[in-house]
């Protein structure tokens, strides 16, 4: 039971990294200018590397001959446990930044707590990842401020994206039995403990960007339990194409 909880928790972490990494990589060669294109691609690569390490660990925990590739490429939509936020479509550059902003602010706090995990493997992965997460957040905050204080068009677009994606932020702080069990055993934090901290980063940054903090309180849930928006299906159809068309293909 304990091991099952940890397995599912690791899969959730890995899926967030994989799906966001995949989303960002869709943008490769489409960045607004070369340096930003490289930045987005670098961030995508960080996430995919993180997913790989986490899947590798999950596969070991499960002990049923699954490999990291089975987990990444050979599951069905309902088996993916990522946040709805990270699967949301790129739409325009403002959406990419808004999604990254909400997620990175959360990710930094979460992985910082995970460095103290009683589970040594998870703690060591977190110690490696947190350094990367900090760069992602700094970079994204720069963009929020730049677009918010930019032209009327950039401000308007970012405010739009900030408002549209807000409804997916509540899920990051949802705590179910798995989370509670792991936090009781000091393996993972209770995300509610750093929610105020997250909100502080978000509201301070938005203020500096002369943007408004969204007010609607309706939140969407489901991703963490395999109930996704239509976006995930589209991601998987592209991401899994090769493994589905040529099963067990290798490099």
């Amino acid at each position, binding site marked *: 039971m304990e091991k099952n909880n940890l397995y599912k928790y690791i899969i959730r972490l890995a899926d967030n990294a994989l799906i966001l990494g995949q989303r960002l990589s869709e943008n490769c060669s489409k960045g607004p200018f070369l*340096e*930003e294109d*490289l*930045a987005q691609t*670098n*961030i995508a*690569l*960080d*996430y*995919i*590397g*993180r997913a*790989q*390490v986490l899947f590798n660990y999950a596969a070991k925990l499960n002990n049923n001959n699954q490999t990291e590739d089975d987990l990444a490429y050979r599951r069905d939509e309902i088996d993916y446990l990522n946040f709805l936020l990270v699967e949301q479509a790129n739409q325009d550059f403002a959406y990419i930044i808004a999604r990254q902003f909400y997620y990175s602010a959360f990710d930094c706090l979460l992985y910082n707590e995970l460095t103290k995990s009683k589970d*040594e493997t998870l*703690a*060591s*992965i977190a*110690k*490696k*990842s947190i*350094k*990367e997460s*900090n*760069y992602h957040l*700094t*970079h994204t905050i*720069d963009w929020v401020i730049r677009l918010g204080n930019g032209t009327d068009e950039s401000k308007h677009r970012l405010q739009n994206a900030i408002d549209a994606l807000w409804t997916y932020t509540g899920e990051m702080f949802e705590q179910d039995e798995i989370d509670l069990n792991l936090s009781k055993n000091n393996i993972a934090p209770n995300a509610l403990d750093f929610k105020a901290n997250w909100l502080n980063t978000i509201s301070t940054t938005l203020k500096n960007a002369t943007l408004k903090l969204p007010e609607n309180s309706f939140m969407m849930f489901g991703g963490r339990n395999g109930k996704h928006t239509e976006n995930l299906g589209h991601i998987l159809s592209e991401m899994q194409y090769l493994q589905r068309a040529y099963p067990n293909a290798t490099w």
Partner: protein
Amino acid sequence: MVNSKLNSHQVFNLISEIPDPEIPVLTIRDLGILRDVKWDNNNYNVTITPTYTACPAIPFISNEIKRILNEYGIYNCEINISYEPAWTTDWLTKEAKLKLKQYGIAPPLHSSCAKKIGAESQIHCPRCNSNKSTLLSNFGSTACKALYKCNSCEEVFDYFKCH
């Protein structure tokens, strides 16, 4: 050449000169990627650590290690990829930092990342040594580098980020 009598220290030396594929002026020992070699009565256990979780050089380096050891008749080697302790720019030796600079990459300024990221404004241009430079992007040509522009000679250069 069959050789089962090499001790782990000798094996370490054999593979320590493998150049990093992305910064070939540095070896995997200079960078601190090669951590340890141990003999466990069956295998040489080689421990390496990636600079970044997604460091694409790791499979290349693993293959190089095996290839070189095979040349010495060693086939019983296990490569462990370790994440703890996490790789840090603190492991770059003084010589490594000098080599980086001569290669045209500004070496990391201070130890690790205790400081707030982005505040590394006093980066010296590796070409003209000017300390006036502007950050162009925190993400450069590879995950471990940022892109700067020298305000004096106007050359764009890579900076090895503190990590």
